[in-house]
């Protein structure tokens, strides 16, 4: 059996990135305030060490945290691939388009205005915010059909308004709530446990196959509107559906991990030159890459400047920015 060179490259890339992800996961479990030797870490992780002294540190603290990071990154990366396809703009991402700030505005409003609101319900609120933002963006960019450029510009406008709302809320609330809100906004994986892992895993498990089914349509949506219609795609319906899927992905990620920027932008860009732009190949590769990025960023954020912990959202911004500048200069 012969494979095309592109498929071979894809296989290699998947293999390497999965390997790296496992490696970073292992490092995330080992490193921290108290370092754990690799062998003990693996034994504890695999459950071979029932009475082990590291059980709590690994199974309750570090492992779920790393998993949440990986899943959130994967979700954001998938959302990024979809958004870049439907806006036909390689610089689109959930952050730029305003999904993140919609989610953040809703969450901050609840944190500041309803002090008794249980933090565990926050994800639902954030998710609602992302959905509202997406609905606004889509309906406002409607002008006898939606256009990718309009979608993008309206998204930036909505994002600015959400930002203004956040600014106002931050001046209106008491300083304690405001501090809490701003930490949440920075995108932190601090204190993430299994109750964050499972909802995220569920969403990804449902949505990832859907994105794969959509991949052929995503490729078609990247052509000009006329071409796509000619190819028999029901353009508008498809665009709405893709947008919905990406909102669900980004919303789930943001609600569990706070606003983590630049991952949805970076992950597809890292993969595209290596394996090409076909969505079928790009989606899984971008997902692993996105997860790897967030896990690595979180690992660096919590180990580089101990005792300070830099929230993962800020780490991804610091890593993502030079990359973004590079993309801008290259064009």
């Amino acid at each position, binding site marked *: 059996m012969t494979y095309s060179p592109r498929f071979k490259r894809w296989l290699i890339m998947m293999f390497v990135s999965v390997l790296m992800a496992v490696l970073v996961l292992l490092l995330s479990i080992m490193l921290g305030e108290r370092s754990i030797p690799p062998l003990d870490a693996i034994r504890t992780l695999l459950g071979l060490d029932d009475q082990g002294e590291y059980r709590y540190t690994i199974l309750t603290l570090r492992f779920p945290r790393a998993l949440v990071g990986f899943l959130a990154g994967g979700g954001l990366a998938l959302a990024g691939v979809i958004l870049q396809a439907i806006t036909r703009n390689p610089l689109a991402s959930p952050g730029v388009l305003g999904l993140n700030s919609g989610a953040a505005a809703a969450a901050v409003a609840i944190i500041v205005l309803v002090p008794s609101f249980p933090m565990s319900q926050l994800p639902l609120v954030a998710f609602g915010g992302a959905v509202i933002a997406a609905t606004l963006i889509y309906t406002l960019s409607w002008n006898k059909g939606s256009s990718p450029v*309009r979608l993008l*510009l*309206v998204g930036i*406008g909505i994002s600015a308004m959400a*930002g203004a709302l956040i*600014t106002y809320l931050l001046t209106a609330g008491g300083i304690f709530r405001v501090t809490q809100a701003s930490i949440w906004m920075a995108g932190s994986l601090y204190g993430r446990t299994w109750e964050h892992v499972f909802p995220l895993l569920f969403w990804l498990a449902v949505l990832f196959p859907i994105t794969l089914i959509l991949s052929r349509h995503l490729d078609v949506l990247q052509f000009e509107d006329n071409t796509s219609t000619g190819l028999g795609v029901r353009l508008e319906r498809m665009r709405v559906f893709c947008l919905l899927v990406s909102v669900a992905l980004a919303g789930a990620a943001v609600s569990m991990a706070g606003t983590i920027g630049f991952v949805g932008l970076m992950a597809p860009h890292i993969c595209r030159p290596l394996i090409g732009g076909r969505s079928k190949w790009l989606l899984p590769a971008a997902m692993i890459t996105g997860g790897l990025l967030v896990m690595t960023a979180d690992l660096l954020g919590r180990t580089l400047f101990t005792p300070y912990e830099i929230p993962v959202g800020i780490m991804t*911004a*610091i890593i993502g920015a030079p990359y973004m500048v590079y993309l801008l200069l290259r064009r």
Partner: protein
Amino acid sequence: MKLRLKGLVILLILVAAAFVLNMCLGLSRIDAKDVLQAFTAFDGSREHLIVRSVRLPRALIAMMVGCALALAGGIMQALTRNALAGPEIFGVNYGAALAAVTASFLLGFSSLKLFAWSAFAGSALVGGAIFALVSLGRGRMTPAKLVLAGATINLLLASITQGILIVHQQSLDTMRFWLAGSLTGRDLDLFIQVLPYLLAGLLGALAMGKQIDLLSLGDETARGLGQKIALTKTIMIILVILLTGSSVAIAGPIGFIGLAVPHIAKYFTGSDYRWILPYSAGLGALILLLTDIGARYVLPSQEIPVGVVTAFLGAPVLIYIAQRRGGLK
């Protein structure tokens, strides 16, 4: 020609009216007569004190900052030939915020003066650099690309600012009001210190109207008509830095005046920048004065920072432009 001149005179009258109104209205309402007497026959009464020490600085700042931001937006749109250029797109506000937060973090104290000058430096650095990059480069960015690039850079600056605020929590409490771009509690002394830079930018921009108009026609045309392009562009970048830097230093980050107002001006004047710029200046002053009044009445018990209100009014303008021009290719 006559008509546009008349319009400008009417605009100036409106600005004057809004200026007086801005001093009259508020939590304690003061008659226009009392406002006038506070200057002609000051008697030390509570009303007169409020007018002289609170209302007057605030109205002055609103007027000048509105002028400056709108002019800066106009120049940016002319030079980049880009309908969606504006100070906020070029990272001026977030650059200022980052600089102010960094300065108070590194130096360990915070005062309005420190915020003002570091914000001036930050906005000049970020805004000037991006503006120069966009306008001096050979390739021309489409409006959508420009906005996207701006949004991304703003996102980055905002995250770094947020990071510093988290590590350095006590500055969050003092900074959050400054960061909202409010006209309350601004310092008149500071305003006077910054004023020369602002006026230099203002007068320079109005004097350069003809050159700016030529340049807005395209590099080739302007060169053909005998303009020294590099020199003009450099002067324009300096003007923009003066205008945006000084307004951020005085009032903190106030968004969307610079992006939206030149479009409103164009609606009245057509595409001649010799008229767009003075109209923008007048309209910018008018709109910020009125917005500042409105910000006192949105919520019953408290004031909303004017920067929040301008964003809520200005973002729809961005959306409207995107709607009207369709693809904006």
